[in-house]
């Protein structure tokens, strides 16, 4: 092996490692469970490693990895014959198993609400609102139009507000009016 190749290899592994915590958080968001998420991440690592040559050095590895993980997630769901939009069913299954896995107590309500979102809305709001992607990147990862991502994020926010009964505190005021407008605009 040439020295140059060896350096490239190390760069690939290093970049992969640095993306892993973020990628894993995305997997947990999609699956709703740590055990399933880690299986998904493992499959993604193996796919990414096997397809190293298809990654263009200097481009966004994080977006590349997220795309692989997302494709893997939906393809596994299809294989299991699961309805993609059956989020209520998934919800009950997820939360009947290992409740202690769901992390900090104060975040459990949020996590349950997130799990109730349709998959397309959940992934959109997570990619844009937490994983650090621009709308354009999220659209590329999900294989849809930028406008579609925007409307999904907007509907996800409205739905989360409803589910979490955002009230009291300083959450009302201008926010409530905006949310109502958003809800009307997207007919949700």
């Amino acid at each position, binding site marked *: *092996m040439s020295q140059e190749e060896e350096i490239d*290899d190390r760069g690939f*592994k290093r970049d*992969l*490692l640095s993306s*892993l*915590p*973020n990628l*894993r*958080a995305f997997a*947990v*968001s999609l699956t709703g469970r740590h055990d399933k998420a*880690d299986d998904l*991440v*493992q499959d993604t*690592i*193996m796919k990414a*490693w096997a397809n190293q040559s298809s990654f263009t050095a*200097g*481009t*966004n590895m*994080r977006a590349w990895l997220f795309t692989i993980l997302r494709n893997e997630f939906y393809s596994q769901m299809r294989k299991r014959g699961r309805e993609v939009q059956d989020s209520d069913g998934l919800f009950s299954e997820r939360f009947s198993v290992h409740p202690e896995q769901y*992390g*900090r107590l104060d*975040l459990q309500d*949020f*996590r349950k609400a*997130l799990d109730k979102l349709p998959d397309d809305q959940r992934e959109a*709001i*997570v990619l*844009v*609102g*937490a*994983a*650090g992607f*621009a*709308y*354009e*990147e999220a659209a590329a990862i999900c294989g849809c139009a*930028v406008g579609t991502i*925007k409307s999904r*994020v907007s509907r996800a*926010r409205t739905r*989360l*507000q409803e589910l*979490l009964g*955002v009230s009291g*505190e300083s*959450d009302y005021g*201008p*926010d409530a009016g*905006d*949310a109502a407008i958003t809800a009307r605009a997207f007919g949700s």
Partner: protein
Amino acid sequence: MSDEENRNPNDMTVLQSSEVKPGAVQPNASISRKLREFYDAVQEEGIPDRFLDLLERLEQAEKNAKSVNAK
């Protein structure tokens, strides 16, 4: 967005100025904050050993394959 620097600048459209950071400009501050708290809590768990071991094995397997090919 420090880790976005390697993005192709042509990817960005007119949306950039107002909409790239929804958490910063969207009105639903409480939802955005909780989402990030949830997400960051998972990120802070770090990288489980099983993935470090897996990468180690993949790397080793690749090295072995290459040294066989080189002979």
